[in-house]
């Protein structure tokens, strides 16, 4: 049995490294992106094997799902930009007159130059080799598991990862929400040009399926959020599921998106961090320290923060997918 497990490990890891290699070696960007999504799904399997179901859930939803959607829509945007440039300026000759796909140049990367091969290989081998050496010399330390375990009964929740994320190391989680927001502010600061390129109407099938799937996604998201207090799940996974549902809705609209008005959208986006800050300040004033909770209040406060965080993350992920800043913003 143990031998079979080792075999599984080896096959899985070989697959992961192989897919990553094919992804980075590919000259066609579409192929690279599809391989990257595969890579994310294989990683989720690896996380399950390492007894990290929370991370597997997050990897599948965020790492493979949302990142994959972002990459694919980026390729679609690059394609449409290039097509526009080439049809819009008839004087510019296509760079590669031999192929009909010349205007898709933005979606191709020529094979790397030969001269970078040896230096890059040497560098990567040295870094990898040193890393492996250092890792093989490490002791079998138990990490912080016993410490977390000893404090679980005062954390307010029953799931250790949620306890770490929203109680013991809540400050990290707070800043993480801030980072999502900053990335969105950065994308918005580039302008409000980025409507999704016009596509033919998707026909009745996609909207029909969504009518079935979106309610299921919402129920699943709420369940995952609620489950986070005692089982794998939590705000980030739930936010990613709801965000994915939102992205699907965006995709099902054939052309123009109804842009969300600026003010409510901003309020929803900052709700997560704002609530976190208020709870943190309350802790500071009440004498539990910044971001601290009274033991009796820990559970309701954690749930409250998680609900706000879920909504903010879902909104931010959809907004990052749409990428342009809301129209009302510039009024």
């Amino acid at each position: 049995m143990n031998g079979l497990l080792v075999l599984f490990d080896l096959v899985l890891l070989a697959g992961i490294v192989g897919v990553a290699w094919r992804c980075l070696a590919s000259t066609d960007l579409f192929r690279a992106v599809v391989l990257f999504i595969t890579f994310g799904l294989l990683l989720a399997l690896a996380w399950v094997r390492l007894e990290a179901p929370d991370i597997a859930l997050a990897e599948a939803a965020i790492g493979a799902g949302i990142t994959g959607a972002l990459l694919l829509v980026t390729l679609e945007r690059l394609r449409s930009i290039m097509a526009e440039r080439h049809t819009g300026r008839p004087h510019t000759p296509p760079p590669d007159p031999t192929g009909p796909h010349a205007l898709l140049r933005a979606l191709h990367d020529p094979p790397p130059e030969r001269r970078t091969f040896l230096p890059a290989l040497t560098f990567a081998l040295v870094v990898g080799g040193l890393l492996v050496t250092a890792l093989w010399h490490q002791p079998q330390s138990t990490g912080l598991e016993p410490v977390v375990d000893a404090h679980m009964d005062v954390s307010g929740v029953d799931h250790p990862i949620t306890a770490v994320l929203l109680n013991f190391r809540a400050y990290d989680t707070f800043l993480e929400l801030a980072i999502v927001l900053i990335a969105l502010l950065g994308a918005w600061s580039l302008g409000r040009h980025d409507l999704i390129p016009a596509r033919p109407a998707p026909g009745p099938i996609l909207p029909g399926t969504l009518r079935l799937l979106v309610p299921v996604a919402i129920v699943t998201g709420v369940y995952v959020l609620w489950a986070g207090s005692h089982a794998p799940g939590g705000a980030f996974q739930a936010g990613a599921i709801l965000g994915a549902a939102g992205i699907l809705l965006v995709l099902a609209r054939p052309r123009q998106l109804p842009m969300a008005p600026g003010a409510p959208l901003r309020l929803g986006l900052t709700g997560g961090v704002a609530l976190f800050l208020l709870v943190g300040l309350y802790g500071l004033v009440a004498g539990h320290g910044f971001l601290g909770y009274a033991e009796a209040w820990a559970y309701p406060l954690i749930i409250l923060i998680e609900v706000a965080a879920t909504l903010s993350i879902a909104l931010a992920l959809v907004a990052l997918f749409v990428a342009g800043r809301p129209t009302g913003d510039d009024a």
Partner: protein
Amino acid sequence: MNGLAETLAHTLAPGLLYPTAGAILFALGLYGLIRRHHLVLRILALNIMGSGVFMVLLGVAARGEGPPDPVAQALTLTGIVVAVSATAFALALVVHLTRLTGHAVMLPGPPDDDVPVEDISRETHHADGSPADPSSGEDRPS
């Protein structure tokens, strides 16, 4: 012979096997980052490097007896969200760069920084994504 089997069993334990694979992914991403020029591929390479770091972290957390370290898992979760945020922002920048210059390739070597820059303090400038003067800002078109 027995010693060899023991070493093998030790080496193939998930607490060592997965960190090793993580280190390989890290190095592989680094290799791709150096060799590929298209910005989307470079972003993919950085993501693969990041996954390598997470694999080391989770592998290290799974070492030893007993349940895996929840702190390491929480850190990984945080790391994944940070990675997707940075990726989304980077992709938005790449789309914008392509819109302005017509390519999404970061050319090797130091760029020509004697190109004058637009001064937002001076003109009435609307960041609607249209290049102010298409001829002035081209970043060394290939």
